[in-house]
């Protein structure tokens, strides 16, 4: 390479590489190391405990398992609803009905709003004294007590709605693009063979969309594992055992309780879970490539 070119490469790459190495790779790698220590973050001393943090986390910490259970709920229930809803709406909007553009734009809109704002909006909707939801349900309640949507018995179910509400549009757009790529001749041929709508969906749309659906499942599972803003803000900064998830528990241990090593160990477990869930989802969804 000529000298001028080499200088240009170094100049172009340097800022990105330095920033990435210092502020991304270094903290990520030191997390892996620091998870092996007992450390409050402020004193000089760190006690090396080997895998002690992980052993305690997995065998002796009921809250971690409760948090994990909440994550499992929040990555499975909304995922099923979002996939079904987005596929249905995508099929509906590609069937040549009027107003498809209006519906697409409207449905996607909540995706651009900040999660904190969405959390506020839904905490208003669920509010027991002035909330929209109880006002909507009032005629159906026949005078019985209004539901307290964010009480311990209902909170997990109540968190599903804002998750679906704020992300369904994204998957709709994804599926619309996938469906528009399918040549219409396939459907014409199926119709000639007498296939009904459901059969067409099952044997043409679904197999040809499988890769896109896999991407969607991976996104949704990762999102469900990493969820933080919604839980943290809904609980006004102090999630309890009714709504604690891994990311909020990590934050609480590290920054509220000054258990830095332990908090980092939770972060490492979160990373492993994200990695494993992605691999499992890809594996379960693997099918033979359909060429078309």
């Amino acid at each position: 390479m000529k000298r001028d070119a080499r200088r240009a490469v170094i100049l172009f790459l340097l800022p990105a590489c330095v920033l990435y190495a210092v502020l991304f790779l270094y903290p990520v790698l030191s997390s892996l190391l620091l998870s092996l220590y007992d450390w409050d973050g402020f004193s000089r001393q760190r006690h090396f405990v080997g895998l002690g943090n992980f052993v305690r986390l997995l065998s002796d910490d009921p809250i971690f398992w409760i948090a994990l259970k909440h994550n499992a709920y929040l990555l499975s229930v909304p995922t099923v609803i979002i996939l079904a809803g987005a596929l249905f709406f995508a099929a509906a909007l590609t069937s040549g009905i009027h107003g498809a553009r209006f519906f697409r734009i409207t449905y996607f809109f909540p995706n651009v709003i900040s999660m904190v704002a969405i959390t506020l909006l839904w905490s208003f909707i669920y509010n027991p004294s002035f909330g929209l939801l109880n006002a909507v349900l009032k005629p159906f309640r026949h005078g019985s007590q209004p539901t307290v949507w964010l009480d311990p018995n209902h909170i997990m179910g109540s968190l599903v709605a804002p998750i679906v509400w704020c992300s369904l549009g994204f998957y709709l757009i994804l599926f619309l693009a996938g469906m528009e790529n399918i040549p219409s001749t396939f459907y014409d041929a199926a119709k000639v063979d007498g296939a009904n709508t459901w059969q067409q969906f099952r044997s043409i749309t679904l197999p040809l969309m499988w890769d896109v659906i896999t991407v969607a499942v991976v996104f949704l599972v990762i999102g469900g594992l990493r969820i933080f803003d919604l839980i943290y803000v809904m609980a006004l900064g102090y999630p309890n055992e009714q709504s604690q998830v891994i990311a909020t528990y990590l934050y609480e241990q590290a920054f509220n309780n000054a258990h830095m090593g332990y908090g980092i160990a939770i972060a490492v477990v979160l990373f492993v879970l994200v990695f494993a869930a992605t691999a499992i989802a890809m594996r379960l969804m693997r099918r033979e490539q359909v060429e078309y």
Partner: protein
Amino acid sequence: MAASARNRSLARPLGLAALYAILLGYAAVVVLPMIWLLYTSLKNNREIFASAWKLPEVPHWENFVHAWVRAGIGRYFLNSALVTAISVALITLVSAMAAYALTRFSFRGNRVIFYAFLAGLMIPSQLALVPLFFLVNAMGLLDTYAGLILVYIAFSLPFTIFVLSGFFRTLPHELAEASLIDGCTHIQAFWRVMLPLAKPALVTAAIFNFLGIWNEYLFALVLISSERLRTLPLGLANLLMVTHYENDWGALFAGLVMVMIPTVVAYSLLQGQITKGITVGALKG
């Protein structure tokens, strides 16, 4: 849209009326809370608690004044605008430079560096959170915009470099080479020829980074502690916590409306580009 020619109708099994009822029903689920939010932001406390449906007797514009001035939404707004503008500009520039070098020059370590950036897409930001706090503190940048902005840049690099290098690969080699023959340096060729050509990809990446950073909460929560430096998501979350004690719900509704306005405006102007960006990013990725 080619779809209309397709005539693969969901309408037949469901009935066209039922299909429209479902579509309009979900549209109402999306829009109704927004409308409720809008008119409730003009009510006073008494009206808010009296009924969710009634419109305000007189619009209480003072809610907006309270939110903007007393609750500090105005300041948080400007803070967020500053942090987001600087971050997005720098991310776009730094990533474009790196993506250009990685796609246009062959040198030893090229692949390694590219995959090192790509690997960042798989890593949840929480994994870096705790050491990052101490690192930024050691750099003397805790509770400063510089610290927050540098972190935003670093964590946006994988996505942005991924998108931009995909685009640079599609551009013809000859243009940059022609400008080099004309006596441009590599830097001039990049700045005057390649960057303008890459504009569509730069804009798409910038929109996504804008939305991500404007709405970002966790890093800001950990790295910013001063009240006067809070970004909008921080300020808004704090306002919610404070309102539970101070009980000025009208101002909180008004604050939420103001927070949503720029995103609504950006979305209505850019929705075509946003949806196209999702499609390209996810289907190729």
